[in-house]
Every structure is written in C-alpha cells, then in structure tokens.
C-alpha cells in the first residue's frame, strides 16, 4: 500500500466539495471532524486541571508539542510528498526568536511567540524557494544541511548566547503571575497551538490548495502540466508548515527557561516527528495526532525505565522499519482498510 493510498479517499471525498467556498467558519460548522479536533483540545486542557496533576500536565505538554510538529510536518511530507528531514529547524528558530525577544527586549510572551512564528515562516519561504527545486533525496539532504547550517551559525552567534545559549531570568514569569501560574498558562497556550495545527492541516486538506499539494505528491510533473503552479504551492506549504511549529517552539523554550543550539536543532527530534507521521499514517490528520501521542507516551516510559532508556532509539527504529517495510500506510492505513466508513468521519 503506497503512502498516498491512505488519503486518496480523502481526495475523493474532497473532490465534489471543492466548488464550495471553504471559509474556516463554514468548515467548522459543516464537518464533524472539526468538532472532534475541538474536543481533543478541550480534553487536553481539562484533564490535568481536574486533579491538579502537574506530572500529567508535563507529559501532555510534550505530547501536544509533538502533535503540533507532526501535523505540520504532514503538510509537506504527507500531502506533497517532500521529506523534510530538517523540520526541527522551524521549532528551534522559533524558540530562539521568542526567547530572545522576551529576554533582551522584555516583550510579553504572546507577542514574542507570534512574531517568532511570522519571522520563521517568512524565512522558510525564502529558504524554501531555494531548496524546493530539488527533488526527492536531494531535497531531504538539503533540509538536513539547512538545519545543521543554522545550528552551527547560531552556535557562533553571540547575541543569541553562542554555544551556551540563552538562560531566562526568573522574573520573566512575573507578568504571568509567578512561575507556578506561568507554567499553566503556557500549557494552555500550547494546547491551543496544537488544536490550531490540527485545524490547519485539516483545512488545507479539504481545500483547493490541499488538492494541489496532493497532486504534487502523486506526480509532480503531471500536476504541473495540469496547471498546478508547483513552485508556488510548494513554497507556500513549506512556509505554512513552519508557522505553528515556530510558535510552539517559542512557548516550549520559554517554559523550559533555557535554549541552546544542540537542544533546539536536534536532528533526532526531527526524525522522530517523521516517525510519528509514518506511524499514524502519512497524510492523515488523525494519524499525525495519534502517531505523535503514542510515540510520546512510549518515549516517556522509556525515559526513566533504567533498563530501557537506551533502547528508545532501537524501538523507534524498529517501529519505523516495520512500518516502512510492511505497513507504509501506518495505523490509519490499517484502520481505513478494516473500517472503510471511518474514512468519512476521521481525516
């Protein structure tokens, strides 16, 4: 089963609707999946508050970050079929811009994070125009190159702390009501960004833009011949896929209180995002969320179980290998085959 079979069903479902005006509000009101996304966001928000369970909040926070990364990655990887190995560069840069603005210029968190998102997606647009003319493996390698170049540059960039990074002074929590409350606020913001990511990837999938991306993913040359403006679509997708990860990066590193090049531009995390998308089902919105959540839970268990902490990579690798060799459609691919009707409800 090829990667694209898992969402070709969605393309069929989208086709008859493509004439409708796809305004965001209209989408929300008409499609049940949108309600599911909203429900998920609500669950994430309420669960840890219920028991005042800080440990649960911490692990859900990580899960939400990964869902954000995975679902945005899906736009370029799942829809357009371009392997963005270096997707973590958006996360890291967003983190640095936001933390820098908060630390040096004392900007409020919300504004700093938003600016980070805008700046990084603009940068992505520029980078993208350069590297998106490369195909397949070349593109993948170029994204690694971009990530490593940015990491090496930031490590030498003194205003951003160089190799040591930036450490936030503890009074940045004061405008948010002290560290305890700040951590909760940041958590809710991250959940909001996660929900927005799911909405975004869903909305793109149902739109004409998304259809173009899917066409590029199937056969780029054919799509170009059929009138899809491939360079523009690819660049827009690459840039759009940078916006929310940059914001969530800003929030995440604000919460961590410190950012340094190794942790911000960690290639392993980048690859894990790909594993999550593949695990859940490439091209599927539910898949990205599911894959991210499951993988993150697995990681959490492995983190502290002394015997297994080293096996984290092995298990992740075996998982990925198994998926690629035997089940390229991922979990949702399996679900869709077993219960074809699910495809109409879940995306």
């Amino acid at each position: 089963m090829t990667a694209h079979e898992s969402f070709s069903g969605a393309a069929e479902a989208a086709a008859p609707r493509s004439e409708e005006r796809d305004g965001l509000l209209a989408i929300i009101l008409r499609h049940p999946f949108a309600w599911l996304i909203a429900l998920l966001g609500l669950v994430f928000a309420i669960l840890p508050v219920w028991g005042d369970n800080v440990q649960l909040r911490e692990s859900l926070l990580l899960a939400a970050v990964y869902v954000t990364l995975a679902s945005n990655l899906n736009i370029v990887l799942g829809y357009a079929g371009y392997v963005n190995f270096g997707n973590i560069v958006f996360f890291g840069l967003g983190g640095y811009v936001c933390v820098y603005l908060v630390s040096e210029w004392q900007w409020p968190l919300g504004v700093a994070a938003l600016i980070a998102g805008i700046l990084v997606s603009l940068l992505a647009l520029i980078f993208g125009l350069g590297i998106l003319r490369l195909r397949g493996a070349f593109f993948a390698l170029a994204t690694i190159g971009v990530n490593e170049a940015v990491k090496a540059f930031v490590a030498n960039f003194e205003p951003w702390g160089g190799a040591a990074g930036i450490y936030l002074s503890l009074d940045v929590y004061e405008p948010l009501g002290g560290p305890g409350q700040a951590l909760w606020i940041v958590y809710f913001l991250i959940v909001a960004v996660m929900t927005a990511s799911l909405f975004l990837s869903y909305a793109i999938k149902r739109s004409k833009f998304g259809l173009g991306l899917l066409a590029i993913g199937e056969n780029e040359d054919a799509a170009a011949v059929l009138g899809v403006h491939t360079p523009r679509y690819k660049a827009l997708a690459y840039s759009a896929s940078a916006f929310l990860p940059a914001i969530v990066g800003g929030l995440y590193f604000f919460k961590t209180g410190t950012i340094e090049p190794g942790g911000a531009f960690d290639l392993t995390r980048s690859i894990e995002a790909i594993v999550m998308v593949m695990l859940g089902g490439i091209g599927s919105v539910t898949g990205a969320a599911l894959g991210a959540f499951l993988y993150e839970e697995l990681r959490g268990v492995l983190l502290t179980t002394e015997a297994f902490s080293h096996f984290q990579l092995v298990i992740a690798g075996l998982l990925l290998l198994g998926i690629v060799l035997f089940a390229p459609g991922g979990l949702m691919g399996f679900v869709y085959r077993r219960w074809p009707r699910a495809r109409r409800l879940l995306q």
Partner: protein
Amino acid sequence: MGLALQMTGVIASIIDGVLVGAVYGLAAMGLTLIWGVMNVINLTHGAMIMLGMFALYFLTSALGLPPYGAVPVTITAGFVFGVLVYWIAVHRVIGRAHLMSLLSTFAMNMVLIGISTALFSTSPYNVPVPLPGVTWREYTFTGTHIMAAMLALLLAGLLYLLLYRTRIGKAIRAVADNRDAAELNGIPTTQVLSFAFGLGVALACVSGTLIATLFPFTVLSGGAYELKSFVVTVLGGLGNPAGALIGGVALGLIEGVTASFMPLNWTPIIEFVLFVVALILFPRGIFAFARA
C-alpha cells in the same frame, strides 16, 4: 618573521587537512558507490563509520591486534554486515519511492545506534596509536595522520582496480548504468546490488577504523562524518567514486584553510553552507565528471 611563521602555519594546517581529507574521501566513496549503483542514499552510513571505530577499539584492546591489522578485519566484517543490511532493509524498497528507502535505511541507522548506545553508552573512547611523526620546522605531522592518508589512498586504488579490472566490477558498472539491460544480459542483478552495498558499507567501516586512529570517538561520532560524507559526495558528484576522493581532499583542504584564518568554530558553518549551496547550484557535482 611573524608572517613567515604564519604562512608555514597555514601550510601545515592545509597539509594536515589534506591528510584527513583522504580519509573523508574514502568514507564518501562508500556512500557514493551505493547511491550511484542503486539510487539509494544509505543513511546507515554514519552508524557504519561508528562501528568501524569501535571495531578498532575492540580488536586492539580485546584481541591485542596491532592497530593497522584491524583494517583487513574491518573490511571483511563490514562487507558481510553490509550484505546483511541490504537484505534486511534495502531489498524490499529498491524500486519504490525514494522516501521509503530513505526512511528504511534511517530506521536501520536508529536501531544500530540504539543498540550500540546500550552496549557502549555515549561515553568517549580512545585508541592511542603510538607512531613517530614527521617534524617540519616547528610543526609536527603525526604519524597516524600520514598512515591513515596512505592507507586511504591505497584502498581507493584497490577499489578502482576492482571496478575496472574485474568481472564483478564490470557487472556493478553495468547494473549502475541500466539495471534492466544488465538483467537481460544475464547478470544476476540482485546479487550484484547486494555485493555493491556490502562494498559501500565496508568502505564506510574501514574509514571509521582509520579515523579512530586519529581522534577519540563516541557512539554519536558517526553522524558528523556522515554529514561530511554528504558534503563530499555532493561536491564530487553522486555515483562518482573518483570524484568522492577528490571531494574529500577538497573538504579537508577547506577545513584546514578556514581553521587557519578564522576562529575555530566557524568551520562547521562553512561546511554546511557549502553543502546547501553546492546542492542547489551543482546537483550533479562540481566536477560533473562522466559517470565512471
């Protein structure tokens, strides 16, 4: 006086760089061979280099082999291991979308690094190789650097002989050129592919062994050399082993020059910017030689 010393210092760094570059070239040859023959980017390349490094450590400490005696052992073991990996991870994805082979080799890479981390942890290892160096004025070129470069060139020469003077080499080149035509001509292409993959991995492993004679290493060291191999492969042209060797020396030269004139921590930036620029401007390699 100061300037003369500066210049000899620069020359010393350049020579050092070229020596190391020969080893980079050897590593990259493994990568480019696999790429050229079967259009697969072997993302286990870094892990293989790392395993070659550890092989040196264990062969010298556990078995008491002299350091350079480990070289033939690593080549053989690397070859066998490479064939194994081919059958596990690569065979099924050869014809399919590029994404699949990228991910499958990458997954294999994660497994290898994960197992190695469990066995060796991420602590640094070191294999001291006492070899007298060559001193020129104030600067010394360590014996290990010289030896590593010589061995790298020797192995590159042997590879050339293999590819151009043997039947199996001819078969490899035929499959690289056009797999279907080769199949029609009676060449067992699948076996040739697995042979080529094994060869590529063997080159990666032995280059790791040579690097381990020069510097300390950890389980994660392979990654840095894998990235250098990518840079070299792009510089030299995909699928072009001769280009890879030249590209390796070129990279070593660039590192030597930047280290002399710029603060030491700028070297990685230059490398990666070069990499991205080269990819965009010269996807066929700066030298764009005719395919070997």
